[in-house]
């Protein structure tokens, strides 16, 4: 028998899985081989040390400390999600509502001119004019928004904040589902 075979039989012996025939063969080898005999006694010593070592109990208050962290850990996540969701919704609403309101106000202002609402019912010409007024107002609004307001620090910071919030929102929504791995 080789030393490797003997080592494998020693492992079986430590695991309590050595058949009587194997035990005899190992004994014969050990009787003749000093190296394996030394290894076997070292293996047994280490095995005894490990098998006899105590279990270290969790320190006092451990479970309570875990529970406290469990509660603390869940708050920031919940608050963070709520914050992102509400700010994101408000920002999205503003993005649509503000320009729409400005367009409406501008249209109303255009139509309250003397040539406006009174002649509206007369014909398509007026409707076309109204359409033209709406377009004109939109153009004016767009010009105001793009040219006049973009210069103001208030608008710039609002736009930057909106961009950041939308990016964060998209990140939260677009995060991939965790991969399911058993046992991890």
């Amino acid at each position, binding site marked *: 028998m080789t030393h490797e075979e003997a*080592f*494998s039989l020693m*492992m079986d012996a*430590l695991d309590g899985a050595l058949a009587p025939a194997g035990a005899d063969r190992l004994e014969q080898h050990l009787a003749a081989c000093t190296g394996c005999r*030394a*290894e076997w006694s*070292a*293996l047994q*010593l*280490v*095995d005894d*040390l*490990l*098998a*006899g*070592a*105590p*279990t*270290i*109990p*969790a*320190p006092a208050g*451990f*479970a309570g*400390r*875990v*529970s406290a*962290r*469990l*509660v603390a*850990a*869940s708050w920031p996540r919940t608050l963070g999600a709520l914050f992102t969701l509400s700010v994101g919704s408000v920002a999205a609403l503003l993005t649509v509502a503000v320009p729409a309101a400005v367009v409406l106000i501008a249209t109303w202002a255009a139509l309250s001119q003397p040539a406006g609402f009174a002649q509206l019912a007369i014909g398509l010409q007026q409707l076309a004019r109204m359409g033209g007024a709406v377009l004109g107002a939109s153009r004016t609004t767009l010009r105001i928004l793009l040219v006049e307001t973009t210069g103001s620090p208030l608008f710039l910071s609002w736009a930057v904040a909106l961009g950041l919030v939308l990016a964060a929102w998209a990140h939260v929504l677009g995060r991939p589902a965790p991969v*399911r*791995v*058993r*046992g*991890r």
Partner: protein
Amino acid sequence: MGDEQAWIGRARSGDKEAFSRLVEAYQTPVYNLTYRMLGNSDEAEEAAQEAFLRAYSRIKQYDAAYKFSTWLLSITSHHCIDRLRKRRLTWLSLDEPLPAQYAAHLASGTPGPEAQAVRSELEDRVQELIDALQPDYRAAVVLRYWYDMSYEEIAQAMQTTVSAIKSRLFRARKMLAAAQTTGTEMAEMV
């Protein structure tokens, strides 16, 4: 067991109180594992807490076809292995001679007259031996000796094959036996 399944079920639906019952039930097995893997009580406490928090956040992934303890110890041992890898130390190897500091430690475990002293000496020595092993060998040894897990269970916990676990455990035992012998010889030479 029935209680445990009920706690797990409630914890899955976000009941932290129910999960706390699981923490109480498993605190010692988890803490002993982190202590044996990491070798000091401060880091063991931190790692054990972290292991439970991870288990809570992944509780929906737990497959009831397996033992809850195996799943929990699997999370714990992986977390300890990650921590040990960050330490970037060198471990015992079969190809290189035993580092002098281990040899000296291992040699100092000669039994003395007082039983109490011998006991704590031996315990120190056990931890010295384990501390010298590389992380995944260490996990295999601890799961085998303290948790009485079969090769199949260890393989399941460490997400590898039975033959890989067998080979880790064989090599670990060989290294420990060699460390033991080298330590003794060096003690005799001094």
